[in-house]
Every structure is written in C-alpha cells, then in structure tokens.
C-alpha cells in the first residue's frame, strides 16, 4: 500500500471549492447550533467517499477507453469489443465501471485493454 501523498496545491483549491458547495447544499450556510460533531464528521466522510469513488470510476473508465486492444497475442484481430461491467470494493466503497473487452475466438481469451501488459509481453 502506497503511503499517503500530500495533495498538490492545484487540487487543494478545487477541494475547497467543492467543500464550500457541499456545506452550502447540506446546511444552507452553516449547521444549526447543537449539531453534533459526529454528524458533521459522518456527512463529511460520506461526501469524501462519494467523491473518491466518483474519481476512481471516471479515471478507470477513461483509462479503459484510451487504448483498446486490437489484436491478440497470436496476431489475429480481436472480435468487436463488447462492454463488460466491473465492480471493485475499494477503501472508500464500491466502484463500478464499464470496460470494453476484446475476445479472440481462436485462443479463447478475453482481453481487458486497460491492463498495460496485454499482448505477448504480458504476464
């Protein structure tokens, strides 16, 4: 597990903007007096988790769409890619995304193009 890296300053501003919008949305300005910190913490964590999952989902979807595999390691072209749903339990919750998958009927293999090691050098 990689250790926690400090957030780049360019993103910190973005986080502040999002946080401001969330607080406005959740509490219409400020939480009413008497709101327990536990409740504020729970809301913050839920929001953070939801943002984290959304970031992960979008990132992997875009990565998968970047470089679809065209040929199998046997050299034959793959069948027209279909989309396969993926679901992963992450530290921040479930992340689901769709990924194109190529299939080689000769080798009876499915290729998930988001993997960097697709092809003869893989694995």
């Amino acid at each position, binding site marked *: 597990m990689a250790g926690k890296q400090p957030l780049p300053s360019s993103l910190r501003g973005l986080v502040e903007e999002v946080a401001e919008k969330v607080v406005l949305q959740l509490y219409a300005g400020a939480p009413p007096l008497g709101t327990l910190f536990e409740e504020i913490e729970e809301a913050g964590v839920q929001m953070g988790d939801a943002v984290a999952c959304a970031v992960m989902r979008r990132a992997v979807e875009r990565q998968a769409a970047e470089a679809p595999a065209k040929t199998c390691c046997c050299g034959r072209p793959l069948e027209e890619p279909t989309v396969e749903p993926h679901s992963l339990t992450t530290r921040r919750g479930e992340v689901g995304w769709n990924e194109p998958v190529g299939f080689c009927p000769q080798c009876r293999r*499915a290729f998930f193009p988001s993997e960097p090691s697709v092809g003869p050098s893989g694995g």
Partner: protein
Amino acid sequence: MGLQVGEAHSPAVLQKIIQAAVRNRSYREADQELSESAELSIGPKAVERAVRRIGGERVGQRDAATEAFQALPLPEQRDGCPQPKAPSLAVVQFDCGRMLVRERESVSTPSPLPAATGGGEEPPRPIEEDACREERVTEAAISAAAQCGAEAEADRWPAEEAQEAQEAAESPPVDECRSRFWRDSKVGCLLSMHSVESAEDPCPEIPASFVNVSRVTQLVRELGSHGSGVPPAAGEEKAEPGREEPRDPQRPAAPVPLVRTVLASRACSTAFGAILVAAAWARGFAAAARKAFVADGAAMNWTMWELYFSHYVPILDFIHALQYVFAAAMAGRSFDVGWEVYGRWIQLVWEGRVAVVIAELRQRQEALGLPPKDASATDPRKIIAVTLGYLETHQSRMDYARYRRLGLPIMSCYAESTVKQINHRVKGTEKFWSEAGAEAILQLRADYLSETQPLTRFWQKRQQTATGQRRYRCAA
C-alpha cells in the same frame, strides 16, 4: 491497472483483508476488525476466499523458488545467492506445531449438513455437530493422519503418550474423535545473528535459571513431557502459583538475532527441508562464515539436516536435553537426591561432557536393570533407557562449550516462540482446516511474521504481473 481479472477488491483492500486475516485469530474476527477499523464490509467467507487465493499464490511462488534453487548446479547452491550480503552468522532453527486438519472433499455420503466447501478455517460450532461430522471423514483420511503424525512422534517421551492415553480415557468420545485430526505444521526460522568468537568458553558455568528448582520444574512442565513424573519440591510448594521467577540476564556472548525469516507449511519434513534450504540460500546463508542448525531430537530434524544442511553445525536444543537429563536424574530417587544428581549432570552437559553423563547413566541402568517390554512410561528403568538412547544418539550435537566459543546459539528458542506465534492463529480445539486452507494460512502467517517483508514484494509484483487476460474454459 494492476488488477487481476475478476478481482472483487482493490489491491489496497485486499492487502487489508489479508493483514486482518493473518493477524486475528479467526476469519470472523478479521471481518469484525475490517468492519470496525477500516469500515469495510467484507464478510468472513470472503476473507477466507481471499486467504485461500492469495495464500495459494504465495505457496506457488515459494514452490517455484524451491524448484529454481534445486535446478541450480551444486557449486552455485553451496556458494550462496549473489544478491544479499551473507550474514556473519546464519542460523536455521526448526520445530513443529500442531493444528486440526481434515479433508471433507472425499466424503461421498450425502448429509443434511452444508456441503463440503473445501474452505480454510471452519467457524466454531457446537460439539454435537462436530461429532456428527467426524463420521463423514473417510478411513483413508484417518490413516493418512496417523502416518503424518507418526513423523513427529519420534521425539516424544513415553510419559507424554501415557498421559495422553489417560486423558483420552477420561475425555468424552468427541475429544477422542477430534484427537485423530491433529496434524503437524512445520515451522522454520532463518536468522541472521551477530556474535563474536572467543578462544575460551564465555559462559563456562551453567546459568542460575537452569539450576533453580522452581524454574526448572516449571520449564519441564511447560515443555509438557515429564510433568507427571516430577515430584513436588519443598521450594516449589512454597512458591506462589503463577508467580514468575526473575529471569537471568542475557548469557554472556549469546548471539543476538538480527533479521528473522519464517517459513511454515504442512509439507512433509523432506519437502519442507527443500523449501527451507532454498529460502536460506536466497538470504545468502550458504556463503555465511558461520552456520548453525538448531533443533530438538526428533529423527526427522536430523534427516533434514543430513539432506540439506550438512554444512551447518548441528546443535541439539539444550532445553530438550535438559528435559531428558532432569527426568533421568529424578527417576527412582527422592527429589532432593535427584536434584543433586541433576545439578551435576546438567553442568556436565553444559560443558559438553555428555560422555561422562552417559557413563553414569549406564551404571545406573546396570544397577536398576533393563526395562521389561511392557514397562510403563514412568518406570525408572524405562526413563533411564530412553535418556541413555537419547544422549547417545545426539552426543555429537551436544558439544555446547565449543558452540559457545564459536558464538553459536545452543537453544531453538526462536523456533519455539515462532511456533507459538503460528499456533496463535491456526491452533484451536474447534478450529478445523482443510489441507489447502491450512497451507494458505500457514504461508501467510509466516510471511506476516517474517522481518524480510515478503508480502510487500509480493503485492508489488502481483500488480506488475496482472495480465488483463481471461482464459475461457471449453464447455463440457
């Protein structure tokens, strides 16, 4: 992305699952920890499946490394791995643990109970249910258990067998059934150590703890062999129960452990020896200036030494020798007289003068006579005969004064404590394992206890080698 196809958990979550599974005492506890500390809802069964899968991968890696080592030419095997720097003192310690194992895959009789899953660890269930399940285990599994257990029985004191037989007679039948499923787990420790050689024995006098009544009787009882034969001493009776005796300061010039690698498996001793020697080679042990192999007197240990570690100095664990010497000294004597004899003999053993003890034991045997075939385990003649055989067999591995001069360890305490750490996870009267589940958890628990961080490297490599390919199987 470094994801295996079909993976349900992200790499970070998978690592947390495995950590929790090997750190806690059960999959259920692991699931609770994940739920409470990491806010992850995984489920005990999913934790078990993850352990089976990752443990299986690690076992595969280990076996591949062993095969690669065996394929090397002999000179390369002897010269040591070129990568890590050879330690000045390389020590291999070996011992056995116990765990309950049963295979249910071969069961053919239909049962209303849940079908055999081949799972790793089964959650505790009422004794009655366990008793029903016992009937479903085939005779083949039972005879395999007997064969497997026989290997480690070689070093067991007859008193222990007698005590177990008595306990079995007094126990309900369920316990008797369960006892058939205890199997050995092999545990090896690879230790790089620091020590200095000296011209003189740095500790010629036996440490006070080995001639302290309370400590020695406690030690003998803890080891579990001769407890029943120990007469109560006056000093011991006065001692408060549960009160720990003050321990001796570190023995002068005792080797200091630096880095420990742990290996554990259900493999037979020959196969485990191959695993151990390959791992020792990978740590550069073959090229170490001083090498020692420390174990108790079980025959399989020394077969393993002959097969794989013959270039290591063989050392019999001093504590096991002490056990035998204590029992023989006490046999047929009052405690006071026996204690005096023990004090003299154990000092001789400490000095490496085992031949003198053997000569005195022969005289004692002559005086008492040889034990008849049906002699009980507590018969003094039998105890003397067994001790005599033990010391004669291991005399060449008991030159303790020389080992101390060479700065070598004389006790297998690191292996003993590692067995306890392994047992903490795998051993329990209600904890039954399948063979595959046992191997997986032993491997991962050993990895967790290793200071060489094998799991860190494993996780990195696992992500790098994710293929992104899924092979489809032909339809039947």
